[in-house]
Every structure is written in C-alpha cells, then in structure tokens.
C-alpha cells in the first residue's frame, strides 16, 4: 500500500509538470514528514552530493559533449554520405540510410536525444527532399535515434553501471549485438513498409563513390574502435574514454574546419546545462533511492512476489510491463533512477543476470522514448519535423514493434547480449 502511495504521489507530481528533480525529491520529503521522520531530511544534501560525484558518472557530460561536437563539426554529414553510398539503393532507400548512419553515429555518441536532434535533422531533410512524406521520414528518424544508447558508448549504460556497480565496460560490450540486431530489425521493418508507403530509393553507388565517401568518413569511423578498443584493452576506463571521445570529436571538428573556436563556449555551456540538468535529477533520485530502501520497499515487493510464486519469466514480464507503462510518462534516465534501486535487489532472487538486465532495461527505455505523451525522441524530432506528437507516435508503430521483438528476445535469450562480453573479458566471476 505504501509503495502504491509513494509512486502515486510521484506520478501525480510529474504529471502536474513539477520539474523531474523536484518531483522525485519532494516525494521522499512528503513521506518522511508525513510519517513523522522529518529528522531524516538532514541527510538530503549529503545524499544528493555523494549521488553525483561518483567517478563513473563523470562520463555523462563528456559523452553529451562528444555528441554535440560531432553534430556541429560536420562529422554527421560524412557519416550520412557514407551510409547513403552503402545502402541507399536497397528497398526503403534513405530510410535504410537513416538507420545505418544512426548505427555508425551510435559508436561515438551515447544519447538518443542528441542523435535525434543532430543527425536526425540531416536525415529528415534529405528524406523530405527525396519525396518522403514528413511524418514517415520523422518516424524513421525518431526510431533510428533510439539505437544510439544501445550500441556503445552509452549514457544509460554509464548510469546503470553507477547505480548497480556492474562493469560499464562489460555493459558496453553487451550492448553491441542487441544494438546491431535492433538496427537490422528496423531495416527489415522499413523494407516491409517501402512498398505500401511508396518510399523512393537511390541508384546503386559505384565502388568509386563508396570509396570516396569511406575516405571522407574514415576518421569518424575510427572513433568506436578507439573508444571500445581503449576500454577493453585496459588503456583507459569508461570515464576516461568519454574524455578521449570528446577530445577526438573536437579535433575532428577543427581538422574538418567545420568547428570554430568561437563556437566552443556555446557548445560547452549547452552540453553542461544538459548534463547538469540530468545530474541534478540523479542527485535527488539518490535521496529517493535511499528513502525506498529505508522504507524497505524492495523487501516488501520481494515478499509479495515470492508469496505469489513468481518465477524468472513472470518477473521479467512484470519488469517489461512496468517499464513500458512508466516509459509513457517518464524520461528514461528517471525510470532507471526510480526503479533500479528496487529491481537490483529483486534480480538476484530470480537469478537474473545484471548485465543482461541492463541491456533489457536500456532497450525498454528506448521504447519509452517513442511512446507519448512523454517520448523524448518524439519531442526532439517534432521540434524540427512539426508533424504532431500523436501522428508521429502512430507512424513509429512498426519500428516500435521491431524494437519490442528484439527486447523480448534479449530478455529471454541472455546469450545474445552476454556472448560478446564473455568472449572478450571472460565469464563473470
């Protein structure tokens, strides 16, 4: 009952448009005061401070900056041109190009919203110019952008690692195959839609065109190898890799003469505001997470689940259901911060692998990015496509089904995600 009341108040505050950070923190405050435990509020600043200063979380502003620098620095144009030469001729034409370019861009950026707002604009413009209806183009762009945080590097993986204390490097590797599978599933969906939607396609590019576009995109294409290679070989940690990624993006921008020194303060401050807005939510969520543990909410849920004779499969279906519903109303990182302190206590009880669980949770919050009324990728694409949120969400349905199929596959076949990290880093001790 208490659990329902807590989440009811939280959801009500969020729906009332109270800032997410305030809604999360205020819920804990309300219940502490309401239960005559106001003395515990003295722990609020300490919990908030230590919730944000973890070394792993330092990666977040750097990965956001890397994405913003690449969007400004002409890297996105080169990647798009290369993907167009590669797959522009297959059924679904530029739709396929959008997915492939998002998959390549994902290897450098860790945020779906950054992908949608940056690369997404280029993809949308090219598709509309080629005769795609804006709502169809916008739906493909929004859906393709959700690949970003699944293919490493990934901000949700960093956050998940920081909350659950599992290896971020292992999570990065675990996201690779599901991310590529997600891209392939979306390409299949686009190929199916190409006929009924009348999607035009390009002439097949010749080898010279492919080679030229490859040469132009060579250095951006090397970024994932630098980042993931550096982490897996032990040259640097995931946090340090984020610094390397943003420095690399900056160097490329200057080398291509698309980035000017005068632009840097604006890009930096915009990235920092984006990061600090998120980090402030993480800060208050740390207090909220501690409050849920203090109130023994995970224990109560475990007792409830065991009393009902729940098994692993049923538990995973419950998680999928809960996160999909929350995804309609909450931003993805907030879902992590609210639910993970509870789920991480329950997972071991049902023998759920925490690495695979991280991949499944990330896939689920990516679906949440496409479901209204609150879908961050829908908002990002709507800001330039102007098709209307509900029209866009409806048009995303086929791609959403494709992502959901991949999510369910990953949830019940953990080897899809775990094969690569186990191969590279050895099985989990």
């Amino acid at each position, binding site marked *: 009952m208490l659990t329902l009341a807590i989440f009811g108040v939280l959801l009500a505050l969020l*729906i009332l448009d109270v*800032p997410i950070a305030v809604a999360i923190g205020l819920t804990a405050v309300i219940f502490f005061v309401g239960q005559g435990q106001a003395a515990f509020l003295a722990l609020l600043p300490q919990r*908030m401070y230590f919730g944000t200063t973890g070394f792993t979380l330092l990666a977040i502003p750097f990965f956001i900056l890397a994405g913003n620098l690449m969007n400004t620095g002409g890297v996105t144009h080169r990647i798009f041109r290369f993907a167009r030469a590669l797959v522009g001729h297959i059924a679904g034409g530029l739709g396929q190009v959008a997915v492939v370019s998002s998959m390549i861009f994902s290897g450098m950026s860790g945020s779906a919203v950054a992908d949608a707002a940056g690369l997404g604009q280029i993809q949308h413009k090219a598709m509309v110019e080629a005769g795609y209806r804006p709502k169809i183009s916008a739906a493909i762009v929004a859906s393709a952008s959700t690949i970003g945080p699944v293919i490493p590097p990934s901000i949700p993986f960093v956050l998940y690692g920081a909350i659950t204390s599992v290896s971020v490097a292992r999570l990065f590797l675990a996201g690779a195959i599901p991310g590529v599978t997600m891209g392939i599933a979306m390409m299949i969906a686009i190929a199916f839609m190409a006929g009924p939607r009348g999607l035009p396609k390009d002439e097949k590019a010749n080898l010279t065109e492919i080679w030229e576009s490859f040469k132009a995109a060579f250095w951006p294409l090397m970024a994932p190898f630098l980042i993931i290679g550096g982490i897996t070989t032990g040259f640097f940690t995931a946090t*340090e890799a984020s610094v390397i990624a943003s420095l690399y993006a900056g160097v490329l921008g200057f080398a291509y003469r698309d980035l000017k020194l005068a632009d840097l303060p604006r890009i930096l401050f915009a990235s920092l505001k984006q990061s600090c807005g998120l980090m402030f939510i993480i800060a208050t969520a740390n207090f909220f997470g501690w409050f849920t543990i203090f109130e023994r909410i995970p224990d109560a849920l475990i007792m409830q689940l065991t009393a009902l004779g729940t098994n692993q499969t049923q538990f995973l279906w419950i998680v999928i259901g809960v996160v999909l519903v929350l995804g309609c109303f909450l931003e993805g990182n907030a879902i992590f911060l609210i639910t993970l302190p509870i789920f991480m206590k329950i997972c071991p009880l049902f023998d759920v692998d925490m690495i695979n669980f991280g991949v499944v949770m990330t896939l689920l919050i990516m679906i949440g990015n496409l479901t209204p009324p609150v879908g961050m990728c829908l908002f990002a694409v709507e800001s330039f496509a102007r098709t209307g949120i509900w029209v866009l969400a409806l048009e995303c349905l086929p791609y959403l089904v494709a992502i959901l199929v991949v999510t369910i596959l990953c949830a019940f076949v953990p080897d899809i995600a775990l094969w690569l990290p186990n191969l590279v880093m050895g099985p989990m001790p």
Partner: protein
Amino acid sequence: MTAVLALLSRFDRALLAVLEVICIALFAAITGILTLNIVVRFFPVMSMHWFDEILEMLYGALVFYGAAAVWVAHEHFSVGDWLSKRLPGKRSRLVYRFLVEACSLVFIAIFFKYSLDLTLGTTEMTTAFAMPKSWLYACMPITGAIMVIYSVKNMLLELRAIVRDDDTVPTS
C-alpha cells in the same frame, strides 16, 4: 514596474554569464586532470594520490552550479505542460502554474536549509589535502540560495500575472 523587470532581466543575463564562466572553468579543470591521469599512467612522472579528492570537489561544484544555471534559465527537465492547456479560464491556468512553482520552492528551500546546516556544521577534513569538507559542500547552499531567489522571483511574477489576469508574463 517595466523598469524593474528590465533590470531583473539584465541581472538574469549577468548571473547566467557568471555561472557559464564558472561551469566552463570547472569542466576545463576536470578535463585537464582526467587527461593528466591517463598520461601519468603510462609515464609515471608524478603521484596522483589527490586525483579522486580534487575530481570529487570539482565535479560536485560543476553539478550544482550547472543546475543553478538550468534553474535560472528555467530549462529544468519536466514532463511538459500539457495539463494547464486543458484547464478552463486564464486565471485557473495561472493559479496552476503558481502552485507548480510553489512545489519547486518548497523543495529547494528545504535543500538550501539543510545544505547550509551541513556546510556550517561539518568538522570533517579531506584525506589528501586535509582541507575542511565544508569547502566541498559550500557549492550546495550557494546554488541553493540562487535557486530559492529565482523560485521566489518566478512566484512573484506568476502572482502578478494572476492579479492582472495576464498569462503572457514570462517567468524567465
């Protein structure tokens, strides 16, 4: 009143510019230290025993000063105002926005009060530099105060709009 609003607007821009400089300087320092740490791992010319402590201090300050900038600019993440558009009458929409601001003010005021108590009351010292931990925590009451002031300002503007029955008054 128009002159006061214009003055406030100028003050907002000046404060945002100061917060921008602070955030960029902190971020540059973090970047420098993290890069140095990678270099020193391969060329161990100096000890980096102070690494964790200084990073914690810089990142803590960055998060809270950055959050204050987001607060001043009224750009904090929220689900979106799709409810007030459905409320009947201009005044009810204004009252609704006033109440949302009030929620923010209550939480930030509590954060400010307890962070100030923590900063003034702590006697702990840091390990590497042996400096008072209150220096680490100082960013919280400072930014908390900024956020409280801006919440009060936003509430006053909302109140003014309610009195005038005018929902075009900007709050940032």
